[in-house]
């Protein structure tokens, strides 16, 4: 049986006097197995936090079912709450306590006996590399340190399922890498992790399976490798061009070009167009493409040929770039 089942989840935030209702989640379904590292990848406002919120009971679903270990979480039964831990998107460490107290009090809230919570707090402070901050107030910690304290706090009550909402947003590359190592470590120990992110690279490296979410719907769900395989062609050739007339028909006709997409380039202000060609590499392909561009009277600004990445999958599905 899956540890988590989300079945046709819908959440519409009721509107106010001046604001219309927001359909944040419009029918999301997925299941996460025990021990899996599952990702929700999507741009700002896709509905990731709302989905996480519904799973942890801080958001009341409009419709749909969520089962944790077979128990309906929307009734918030205490046993189900003990199995879940949350690392929220906004840092919410108890500002009146010290870092170590935050952990020991969290242990108290979940009924851990004194000896156990003290020992576990020390072990987790060590493990998450915040032991030197044990007596500090959370407000004096850096973003990365606060993030690690939040993870330590989440682990205090020995949950089975940890929900991490954008755990690496706003961290510098080094802090992000440290966090990745920590998350991999937790996963290897058998914890089930669900994380949201809008970093392609993060989703690709970390997640065993991931769902790409946009506008409150799951666009696709699979392993990163399988997602990349769904793209037509073995490589992706990106052209940034300025063309007086459409180039697409000529480019499409070139043998080896499997597919062509226009990509929306957000807000740069220059008139370059981004054309994305899914190609199977062949002798002379690049030559023929460049020739077609020149024939079309276009000004070629930039070229990029690469293995398909998750980002390409994303662009293929949405027609948009995902800006980091």
């Amino acid at each position, binding site marked *: 049986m899956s540890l988590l089942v989300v079945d046709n989840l819908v959440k519409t*935030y009721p509107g106010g006097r001046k604001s219309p209702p927001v359909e944040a989640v419009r029918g999301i379904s997925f299941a996460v197995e025990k021990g899996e590292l599952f990702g929700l990848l999507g741009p700002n406002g896709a509905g990731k936090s709302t989905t996480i*919120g519904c799973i*942890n*009971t*801080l*958001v*009341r679903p409009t419709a749909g079912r969520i089962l944790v270990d077979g128990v309906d979480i929307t009734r*918030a039964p*205490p*046993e189900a*709450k*003990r199995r*879940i831990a*949350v690392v*929220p998107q*906004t840092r*919410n*460490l*108890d*500002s*009146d*306590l010290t870092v170590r107290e935050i952990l020991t*009090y*969290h242990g*108290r*809230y*979940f*009924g851990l006996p004194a000896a156990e919570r003290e020992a576990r707090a020390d072990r987790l402070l060590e493990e998450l590399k915040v032991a030197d901050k044990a007596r500090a107030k959370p407000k004096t910690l850096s973003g990365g340190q606060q993030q690690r304290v939040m993870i330590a*706090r989440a682990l205090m009550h020995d949950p089975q399922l940890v929900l991490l909402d954008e755990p690496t947003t706003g961290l510098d590359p080094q802090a992000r890498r440290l966090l990745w190592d920590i998350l991999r470590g937790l996963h290897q120990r058998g914890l089930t992790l669900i994380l949201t992110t809008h970093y392609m690279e993060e989703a690709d490296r970390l997640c065993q399976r991931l769902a790409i979410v946009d506008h409150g719907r799951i666009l696709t769900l699979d392993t990163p490798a399988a997602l990349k395989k769904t793209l037509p062609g073995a490589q992706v050739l990106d052209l940034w061009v300025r063309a007086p007339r459409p180039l697409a028909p000529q480019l499409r006709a070139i043998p080896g070009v499997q597919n062509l997409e226009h990509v929306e380039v957000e807000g740069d202000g220059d008139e370059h167009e981004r054309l994305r060609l899914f190609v199977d590499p062949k002798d002379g392909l690049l030559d023929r493409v460049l020739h077609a561009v020149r024939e079309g009277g276009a000004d070629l600004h930039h070229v990029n040929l690469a293995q398909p990445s998750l980002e390409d999958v994303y662009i293929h599905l949405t027609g948009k770039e995902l800006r980091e």
Partner: protein
Amino acid sequence: MTVFLALLQRDVLVARRNAGPLLVATLTQPILVVLVFGNLLPRMQLVADEFRTVMLPGLMAITMMMAGVQGVLMPLVQDLSGGREVDERILTPIGVRGVALERIVAGALHAAVAGLIALPAMMLLMHQVSGMEVHPAWPALLPLAALCGLLSAAFGLTLGTHVQPRFSGLLFAVVLGPMMLFGCAYYPWAALAALGPVRYLFLLNPLTFMSEAMRLAVTPNVPHMPLGLLLGGLLGFLALFTILGARSFERRTIL
């Protein structure tokens, strides 16, 4: 239950750490009022001696009301604005209603402590002038103080969750100020008989029952409200504000 106690323990720890500023915030006003109306004015013979006897329990009630409301309101503002520190507590097995009840009990503790510190402090200040009839009846005082504390805290939860956090300062001017003037703090319920049926309007103010409760407990010789009406009022308002407060706390925290 263990979750409840753990949450309470955390609040007591934090309150103890902030005890200084917290007590100054709640006790300054009533102590100064006692100084002026209970000490200076009687010495200048500008108010009758009995006034002090009437005022003392009323001021205790006001102190507890302010302490209870503040004891809930201050952490609530922190909880409901941006930071969402409260989420950690809601995610404990006790759930959102449990957290609301715990907040009420923590606020009540704060109120009861403030009230019980205020009493001797006020008596000391008024002592210099004779003619006081203060005989605290401790067995009645303690449970009534606890009840008044709970009521104030539940009222604070109701206020705090119905008002945007940034407007909470306004509450003191718009709600609590008038309540204090029309809550039988500076005059006994018995004396309101002079107003005819208008006096029953005062029963809409929870502070009326708190003032009379303190009057019963601290100055038993002064005429006060019958015990039945008193308890009915206190318990009725407590139930009302607990339900209203817990409900809107839930509405504000679970989206």
